[in-house]
């Protein structure tokens, strides 16, 4: 029986001949087949993954392997372009679409001999917090199937949670990696904006989007980040700073960290008291371990979700204009009277309800007459927030927050109340507004049986220290 614990353990098993890539792939294919009802995968590349596994096994036996991700089985959210494979953003408008080029991140993974086993369900165009807004039907939380896995990268979270791949990729625009990781009891990491090239990531909100990583441990996260990070000539918003050797520098001597928390966030009425208590308790124990833990006044709490939704929907309304039925994707088959009618029918048929809602919202906030009241003001809030966060990081190494105000929602609970769904993003959107790295660490279990996490954020470019800190927190949990 194949058992996975970490990439380094798996690879030493391979080198020692205790397992093979084929065995690993066969294991995951069986697991995927056995959990079809979870609806995590929207496409499984069975033959391709097996063929690649066989090839890699041969190469390894010939001593010709060089890849740092040799044989690592990865699932990818259905918003990342992978040449020759379906790419649909879980949307009707991209049904039948196949990518004609690979995202920079995908190329880097494949160059390191990773095996991509399939593409993962998500909320349509990464818009949603429950993974119910998808043309493929909802994804179930493997810990409690009456609950959602979170979103938008729900499929990616469940794939790791339920052991359907070793690590997976998601995308995080306002918490879409961290919140489902929180709901599913795994590690969800969003690097700082621009750390991983966005080339090939379907844009939801360009100035917020970032590819993120789901895993069960920090060394796996660090290795994937190390491989995918770095400047890219195809993405001018990618950070020009060379990334650190994250995976090699995780273990460092313990030093006292300076940790900030926001009482306004922890005492917010929307926060589940049990989550609040768990976080406070953890802060207390950090203090007892010798770290400097301090409350910081943060008065922007009520402005960040509205600003986030104004800005992301504005960008989305423009980013999604390309899905017009002219060059690819769904095109209406109904008779049309003119060009405008063609667009209306094609897009009305192709997009789901939540996506249409956000396109209309975004179009509205950019419209003449409303622009300054919404878009310009939201930009100001973003600027204020970014400055405020920078100031905080002058004095602190990390900010600690909950990841979500509740544990995983019941299915259908938020579907009919979009505002309630949006407000549940209260703790995650901050990192995207400010472009800083953030991580959700599965440290707690609620009385209702669900696991939930703690969110830690670091300043821009400081992924390494965030991962070190996270590694420490998770290792301590295991002790």
């Amino acid at each position, binding site marked *: 029986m194949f058992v996975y614990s970490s990439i380094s353990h798996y690879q030493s098993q391979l080198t020692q001949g205790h397992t093979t890539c084929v065995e690993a792939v066969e294991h995951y294919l069986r697991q995927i087949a056995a959990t079809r009802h979870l609806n995590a995968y929207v496409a499984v590349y069975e033959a391709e993954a097996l063929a690649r596994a066989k090839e890699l096994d041969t190469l390894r036996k010939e001593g010709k392997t060089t890849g740092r991700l040799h044989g690592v089985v990865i699932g990818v959210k259905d*918003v*990342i*372009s992978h040449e020759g494979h379906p*790419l649909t*953003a879980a949307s009707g408008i*991209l049904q039948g*679409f196949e*990518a*004609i*080029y690979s*995202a920079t991140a995908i190329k880097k993974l494949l160059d390191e001999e990773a095996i991509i086993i399939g593409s993962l369900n998500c909320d349509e165009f990464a818009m949603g917090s429950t993974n119910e807004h998808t043309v493929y039907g909802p994804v179930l939380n493997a810990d409690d199937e009456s609950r959602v896995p979170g979103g938008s990268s729900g499929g990616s979270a469940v794939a790791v949670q339920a052991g359907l791949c070793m690590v997976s990729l998601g995308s995080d625009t306002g918490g879409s990696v961290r919140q489902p990781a929180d709901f599913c009891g795994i590690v969800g990491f969003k690097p700082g904006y621009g750390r991983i090239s*966005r*080339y*090939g*990531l*379907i*844009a939801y*909100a*360009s*100035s917020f989007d970032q590819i993120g990583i789901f895993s069960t441990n920090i060394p796996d996260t660090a290795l994937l980040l190390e491989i995918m990070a770095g400047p890219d*000539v*195809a*993405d*001018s*918003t990618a950070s020009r700073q060379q990334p650190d050797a994250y995976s090699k520098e995780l273990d460092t001597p313990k030093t006292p960290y300076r940790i900030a928390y926001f009482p306004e966030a922890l005492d917010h009425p929307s926060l589940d008291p049990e989550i609040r208590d768990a976080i406070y308790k953890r802060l207390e124990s950090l203090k007892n371990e010798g770290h400097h833990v301090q409350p910081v006044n943060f008065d922007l709490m009520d402005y960040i979700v509205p600003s986030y939704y104004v800005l992301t929907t*504005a*960008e989305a*309304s*423009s980013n*999604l*204009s*390309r899905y*017009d039925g*002219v*060059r*690819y994707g769904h095109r209406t088959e109904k008779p049309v009277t003119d*060009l*405008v009618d063609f*667009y209306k029918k094609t897009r009305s048929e192709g997009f789901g309800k939540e996506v249409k809602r956000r396109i209309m919202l975004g*179009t509205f906030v*950019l*419209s*003449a007459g409303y*622009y300054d009241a919404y*878009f310009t003001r939201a930009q100001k809030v973003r600027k204020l927030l970014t400055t405020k966060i920078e100031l905080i990081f002058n004095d602190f190494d990390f900010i600690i927050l909950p990841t979500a105000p509740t544990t995983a929602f019941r299915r259908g609970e938020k579907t009919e109340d979009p505002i309630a769904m949006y407000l549940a993003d209260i703790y995650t959107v901050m990192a995207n507004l400010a472009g800083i790295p953030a991580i959700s660490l599965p440290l707690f279990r609620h009385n209702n049986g669900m696991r939930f996490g703690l969110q830690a954020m670091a300043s821009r470019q400081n992924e390494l220290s965030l991962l070190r800190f996270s590694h420490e927190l998770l290792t301590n949990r295991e002790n």
Partner: protein
Amino acid sequence: MMSHPEYEIVVGLEVHAQLLTNSKLFCGDSIAFGAAPNTNVSPVTLAHPGTLPVMNHRAIELAVRIGLACNCTIEQHNYFARKNYFYPDLPKGYQISQHTTPICGGGEVRISVSGEEKTIRLNRIHLEEDAGKSIHDANPDFTAVDLNRAGTPLVEIVSEPDIRSSDEAFAYLTVLRQWVRYLEVCDGNMEEGSLRCDANISVRKKGDTRLGTKVEVKNLNSIRNVKRAIDAEAVRLTAMLENGETIIQQTRGFDVNSGTTYAIRDKEDADDYRYFADPDLTPFVLETAEIDRIREALPALPEARILHYTQALGLTEYDAGVLTEERNFAEYFESVTQHTTYYKSAANWMLGPVKSWLNEPGRQLANFPLAPAKLAALLECVEKGQLSFSIASSRLFEKLLDQPDAEPLELARSLNLLQDSDASSLEPVIDAVLAKFPDKVEAYRKGKKGLLALFVGEVMKQSRGKADPRVTNELLLEKLKS
């Protein structure tokens, strides 16, 4: 010309110039004209999911060049904006353009119409990408879309409404086209669409300070058609005002066959483009040093060259104007003047034999075989009396083009074309001519001095053009005196 002199026409022009880059504004696709439809289309041009634009820095440099030439203020902190609208030849559903921070602000273009100087102020010059091409007549049931052009870098040069006649518009566009060619910013080819013009036209009573309601005539594809469209609109709009009609703000097209304009749409249903800064492109900062580097590398423009030619080289305004029409022609001329001080003669050679050679189809100055130094040597032979101009230009010039490495003087000698200024060899010819026309000699001696030209001409004829006219003259005068 206004049919009603109490009205005046007010015109502002928007000129789109396709930049002479190798590739598109935001990806590596070629922008070569004439490729098979939809062949220069990468995933970026096709706006495939997940693609991103990356700035072509060459385009920035070209935009700065034209901006500096027009004396604009160069914006150092630039960002791109998205102009959102749906159209099948616009793959992303938005055009990447510049909105609140055009790369060049203000500026001016000086023109001259029938000897009168005038300055046309510019509002702005901004960078943007072109859309694809919708082809409506390829198929009766469909509109075909060619995306080769989509993403091609353009500058849009927007003038203030300072133009008051179609002649001024003509002059303005002629100067602008000449400048973009000089600066190698754009090839200026209006037929291929690399230079296009939209004209904003209104009329008002003279003395009125408020602008009339404007119409915009789109996509004018030659300077002549801009002039025709303005004239047509002047007549139409004036007639409307005279008839008490209200002019509505409109976008109009121009029918090149009938020379009239037609309504495309009213501006009332104009789109809201929902501009915002493109988050896929980081703002770019133009350092002062970079702007200075571009400024220093700018070639001299016609105006400066004309001044130099007339003041330092003593040429006429007219010759200087013709010499500077094209940059490479002017530069060739200037190279010639590095090798000789007979500037006037150099100008004559450029405007005469060299221009005639260029007038043959398919010829370009780049393929002109003769080095400037050789042309200088050739014209010096004439100036020094070694060769007559007519022989030099009609016979030696051609031979020299075939043997561009030969020394003009040597070649002339070997071809026996050198001028005869030797009195001993000229005298017998002169004697023979005078003997041939005894009555004319008689008449000359009686005062018909004008007959000298006839004798000179006859001597030239007899010597097959090689007689030195100066020496011939002297000898003739001598002989006729006696």
